[in-house]
C-alpha cells in the first residue's frame, strides 16, 4: 500500500484515501470534432506506460477531495514528487532508480535455487 503526500492537505496519508486517475497533463483538443482519427486515438486511448518515471493524477477522494499530480517511479513505486493541479510538469529524469524489476522472491528471499 502506498503512502501519498497530498499537496493540499500537506500531509502523507495512506493510499486507501486516494483514487488513482491515470495520466496527467493530457490536454483535450479545443476543436475535438475536427481532429483526425489518429489524433483522437492518441488523446483518448493512448496512455504513457513507462518503466520508470510516470506523471499521473490522483484524487484525495476520502480527504480534501481535490485532484493533484504526482511523479512516481513505476519500478519501485516511490513517489518522487506530488504537486498541485495546474502546476507545470516537473523536469525529472525518466529512467527508473533501478532498472531491475523488484521480484518478490529475489528481493525478499535471496536467489532462486
Amino acid at each position, binding site marked *: 500500500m502506498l503512502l501519498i503526500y497530498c499537496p493540499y492537505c500537506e500531509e502523507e496519508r495512506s493510499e*486507501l484515501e486516494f483514487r488513482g486517475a491515470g495520466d496527467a497533463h493530457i490536454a483535450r483538443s479545443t476543436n475535438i470534432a475536427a481532429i483526425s*482519427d489518429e489524433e483522437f*486515438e492518441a488523446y483518448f486511448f*493512448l*496512455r504513457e*506506460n513507462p518503466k520508470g518515471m510516470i506523471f*499521473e493524477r490522483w484524487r484525495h477522494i476520502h480527504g480534501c477531495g481535490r485532484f493533484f499530480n504526482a511523479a512516481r517511479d513505476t519500478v519501485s*513505486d516511490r513517489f518522487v514528487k506530488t504537486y498541485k493541479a495546474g502546476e507545470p510538469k516537473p523536469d525529472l529524469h525518466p529512467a527508473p532508480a533501478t532498472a531491475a524489476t*523488484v521480484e518478490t522472491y529475489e528481493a525478499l528471499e535471496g536467489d532462486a535455487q
Partner: protein
Amino acid sequence: MRKYSVFAVVREAMRGHKGWEAQWASPEPRKEYDAIIVGGGGHGLGAAYYLAKEHGITNVAVLEKGWIGGGNTGRNTTIIRSNYLYEESMDIYEHALKLWEGLSQDLNYNVMYSPRGVMMLSHNIHDQQSFKRHVHANRLYGIDNEWLTPEQAKAYCPPLDIAKTARYPINGAALQRRGGTARHDAVAWGYARGASDRGVHIIQNCEVTAIRRGPDGVVIGVDTNRGFIGAKKIGVSAAGHTSVIMNMADVRVPLQSSPLQALVSEPLKPIFPCVVMSNTVHAYISQSDKGELVIGAGTDQYNSYSQTGGIQIIEHTLDAICELFPMFRRVKMMRQWGGIVDNTPDRSAIQGVTPVPGLFVNCGWGTGGFKATPGSAHLFAHLIARGEPHRLAAGLTLDRFRTGRLIDEAAAAAVAH
C-alpha cells in the same frame, strides 16, 4: 527427444532415474534467425512451437529476459474458460479451449488440463441478467454455458454458503463445465520441449534492449544483453512489458501495466471440486492438485512494474472468500505474489501487424490470457508465418482503437479472468 510414457517411468525407476535428458537445449544464439519471439511465456513459446510444427519455420529463437515461464505464465491462477460475450472473444477462447483438450497428447507432456467446471456466482439482478445474456449468446454460438439455481450451485460446489442471510447472498450462477484449470509451468515447459525438439532455440537470460530497423524501416534484428541478433521477423509477446519493447520501435500501444496478485493456502485434503469466481465481490478460488487453495485477487489502481501489489487488495479478496466459504476462515495463507498485467482500454487482447514492417505484436491479454495460451500461440504463429492474421484473430487488430471497432468485453465480461 525421448518420448514420455509409463514405460519410460518404469525404465527410469529401475535404473535410478539416470536416463532423463534435459527437456530443452540451451544453445548459444545464432547470428540471425528467420523469426525471433520476444518473451518466453506460454504465448511466446507456444508460437515458436506452432511456427515449427505447422508452418515448417524452425530457424526461430525465443528470447527470454529471465527464465521461461517466470512471467505471468508462472504467476497466474490458471482459470480456463471460453464463455465470453462477443464473437471475436468466443472465437479465440473457444479455439484455445479445444486445443487445451488435446494439448497433453499433442505435446507428449502432461499439462494437467482439468475440466472441473468454472462456476461464476451471481449476487444481484444485474449479475443475473448479464450472466443469462452470456449463457444465451454462448449457446447460440455452440459454446457450453448454463444457468444454475443457488441450490444447484451448492450441489456442484458444497463448500459454498447460499444462505439468504449471507453477507453476499447468491441468486444463481453460470457454469461452464468444460472450463477448469491446467498446470502453468507445464504449459511453458511442454511448449519449450516441443519447440526445442523441432530446432527452435530457447535462449534464457537474454533481454531485448533495442529493436533495429533498416533504412527502409523493416526490422533487421534486436540488441540484447548477449549482443545483436538478426531477424527478418520479430514477434513481441511480452505481456506486462509490451509497452517497453514496442517503444523501442516507436510504436505506442494502448496498454497500461499494473500488478495483479494471487495467493495460496497451506495444502488441504481434496475439498474444493471446481473453480468458483465472483466478479461482484472479486474473489476467485480453486484447489491445486498439491492441495493448496489458489486464490486470485484484483489489480492495483496504478501503473506499476513492481510485481508486488498492495496488501489491501488481497485483504479485500480474502474477506470475500471467507464470506462465501465460511469453512475456510481458519485456513492459513502460505505465499503471495504479483505479476504485471497489460490491460487494453476495451479489455480485449491485441494480436496483429504493427506500423513497422516485420514487427508483430501479441499483447493485452491482461488479467485473463492464460486460458488463451494455446489458441493465441497458434494464431500468432499463423500471423508471423503468413504476415496476416488468421480468420479467428482478425478482430484483434491494433488499429481498432483508431477505427472504433472495439471488442468491448470491458463493459460486458461477466468476470475479469
